[in-house]
């Protein structure tokens, strides 16, 4: 009897333990549904969404839209407006942390396993080629014709096209701008430079005026920001990373000249630590009033003139200069595209396309710009009177972003970017000769582009 009792007790205890474990699991899951900002655990909330689809009497199609919370609030507002505007589709948002790497890893995990919990994603433009070459993105060409893409800035549409197919829809964009100190240029009676030589000459004269210590400021730490900076020197010296056939052309004479110009700015004009600067560090020095120029993303126009800045009201904006061999100035484009998960059903895809059409209409783009200050992709918005009144900077900015170019498209972009970061950083810090660094970079990119 006693033995039996013991056994029953033992079994009972085990059962309780297992159950409590299961309960813990269940609890964790429901928590995830609420806490959708947690990157890796949002899957459940997505499934929840599709389950409710059949339960709702109106039988709306539910679309799950995932993006980073950097643009969370304004986007939610736009999505709410969309949901209120019609009764066929219900868009639910799934927020991810504001960290490009986390967002990337989350999407990769889902798409690589054929998950269908997410229908639309806000994807950083640099990953389009990688995702498209893996076959994860639905072809949007069947839903949208040129009338939609023709309204957009060309560089953004190019970046959304892979292998001739429209695999993404530009949502909002961003580009680098050359910001300068208006007060110093006025004092010197100088015009805004259009060449790198002009930049350096101006910088030589400006040191000492109104607290200027450095002629140049940009981002040259070993990071994605370095890639953006460097490709601009390359384009503006008439060089490129890949030719029209996709063959790497990295160690060209133009690119050597481009890198030489950049290194000269690093060595003689920029703060000593520029090779350790990402955006934040470079902005700090400029906001202190120590730099004549800073190359930065368009958002710096407002963030650079905040309360913590000593240069509020003294900033001007212009296009990047060109160097020898360059014809017109190009800026590096950033921003997010809307992409559709290829694994979802055709009805879901059509609903997703419907939502995307709404998101990129001139009207929504204008609304989004007004509430988020993210540069729109639709050209007309930049000329809109209401927009210009609220963001006068866009008058200058439009000419910059018109010349915007996307970073080299490659299915192995992550590797290309990593190789550029390492070799160019070594060249800029002087650890390796420029020619050798570019030769090594060319060899490395050739090796994995085979």
């Amino acid at each position, binding site marked *: 009897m006693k033995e039996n009792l013991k056994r029953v007790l033992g079994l009972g205890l085990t059962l309780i*333990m297992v159950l409590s*474990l299961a309960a813990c699991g269940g609890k964790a899951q429901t928590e995830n549904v609420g806490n959708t900002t947690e990157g890796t655990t949002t899957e459940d909330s997505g499934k929840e969404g599709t389950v409710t689809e059949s339960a709702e009497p109106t039988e709306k199609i539910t679309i799950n839209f995932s993006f980073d919370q950097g643009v969370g609030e304004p986007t939610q507002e736009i999505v709410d407006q969309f949901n209120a505007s019609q009764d066929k589709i219900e868009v639910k948002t799934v927020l991810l942390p504001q960290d490009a790497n986390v967002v990337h890893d989350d999407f990769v995990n889902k798409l690589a396993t054929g998950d269908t919990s997410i229908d639309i994603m806000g994807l950083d433009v640099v990953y389009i080629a990688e995702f498209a070459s893996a076959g994860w993105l639905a072809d949007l060409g069947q839903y949208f014709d040129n009338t939609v893409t023709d309204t957009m800035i060309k560089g953004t549409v190019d970046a959304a096209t892979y292998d001739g197919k429209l695999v993404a829809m530009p949502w909002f964009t961003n580009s680098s701008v050359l910001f300068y100190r208006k007060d110093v240029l006025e004092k010197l009676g100088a015009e805004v430079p259009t060449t790198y030589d002009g930049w350096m000459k101006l910088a030589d004269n400006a040191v000492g005026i109104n607290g200027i210590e450095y002629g140049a400021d940009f981002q040259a730490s070993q990071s994605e920001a370095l890639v953006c900076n460097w490709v601009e020197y390359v384009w503006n010296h008439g060089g490129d990373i890949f030719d029209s056939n996709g063959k790497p052309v990295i160690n060209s004479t133009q690119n050597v000249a481009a890198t030489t110009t950049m290194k000269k700015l690093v060595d003689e004009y920029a703060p000593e630590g520029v090779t350790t600067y990402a955006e934040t560090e470079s902005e700090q020095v400029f906001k202190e009033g120590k730099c004549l120029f800073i190359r930065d993303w368009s958002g710096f126009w407002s963030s650079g003139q905040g309360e913590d800045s000593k240069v509020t009201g003294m900033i001007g904006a212009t296009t990047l200069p060109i160097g020898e061999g360059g014809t017109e100035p190009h800026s590096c484009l950033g921003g997010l595209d809307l992409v559709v998960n290829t694994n979802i059903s055709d009805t879901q895809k059509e609903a997703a396309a419907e939502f995307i059409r709404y998101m990129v209409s001139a009207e929504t783009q204008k609304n989004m710009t007004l509430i988020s200050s993210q540069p729109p992709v639709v050209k007309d918005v930049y000329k809109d009177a209401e927009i210009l009144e609220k963001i006068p900077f866009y008058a200058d900015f439009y000419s910059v972003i018109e010349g915007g170019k996307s970073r080299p498209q490659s299915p192995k972009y992550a590797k290309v970017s990593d190789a550029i970061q390492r070799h160019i950083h070594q060249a800029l810090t002087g650890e390796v000769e420029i020619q050798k660094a570019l030769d090594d970079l060319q060899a490395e990119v050739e090796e994995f582009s085979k």
Partner: protein
Amino acid sequence: MRKNIKKHNFMSSTEARDAWLMMAPALIVLLVIAVYPIIRTFWLSMHEMMLTDPSSGYPYIGFKNYFNILKDKKAIEAILFTLKFTATTVSFELIIGYAAALIMNKAFRGKGLVRAAILIPWAIPTSVSALMWKFIYNDQYGLFNDVLYRLGVIHSYKAWLSTSGGSFMALVITDVWKTAPYMALLILAGLQMISEDLYEAAKIDGAGVIKRFIYITLPIAKNTVIVALLFRTLDAFRVFDLISVMTGGANRTESIAVYSYKNLMKFLDFGYGSALAVLIFIVVFIISLIYMRFLGNKLTDMEG
């Protein structure tokens, strides 16, 4: 007699069964969260698996990924850097930690407060302290520059993280700052096991401070020190967040963990990345075995 034995066996067998039943949930959880990932990683490392290239069908390629590591200059560089980093930081941490533990072991006023305060660096999450130190090394506003400049060591502010020597030094200082306290506390625990009587007896026999340290403190605290060293060596070998935040692997400071992460999550090369991860696992395992060997010998020595 016989009956007794039989009964005893029966008892112990049911007890054993109950014990297994009781442990089952824990064992299952361990299997799922610890053993399965290790086996899975090993299995992945035997395949060619680029997530962005599903058309390849992820074929089995045996140990090819491991041979590729030997041919990969970047991987070798990363391993060498990691070893150098581990050796340097752990030795500094041992010396500083030991010294701090000796001081804290003395009876003085505010001892409790000091012991708690010394743990603060260790309690700050690594990525936060890495960001903090990154700013300390800043070429424009950095505290590090300011202090050295005032002391007259340098004549102009320097960008410490822009050269490979400077980056290495900065990383070592930050890691030592963060983990020496941890080492100190572990060693302190060992020191407190030593009975005061031993010191008094030695004193009566005429042993000086140094002799007492060499013949009493060192041998008795040895095992604790080895355990502390084991923890720190394993941790240092897997260094990731510190480097990822402070230098991003620039200036030849890419550790093997950072390189492995890059291959896995950035290049999406799960086969090769897993092979690197398994390599880290093996090295860490070997390091543990070496320390265990030390520990085992010392234990038997003490018994003998």
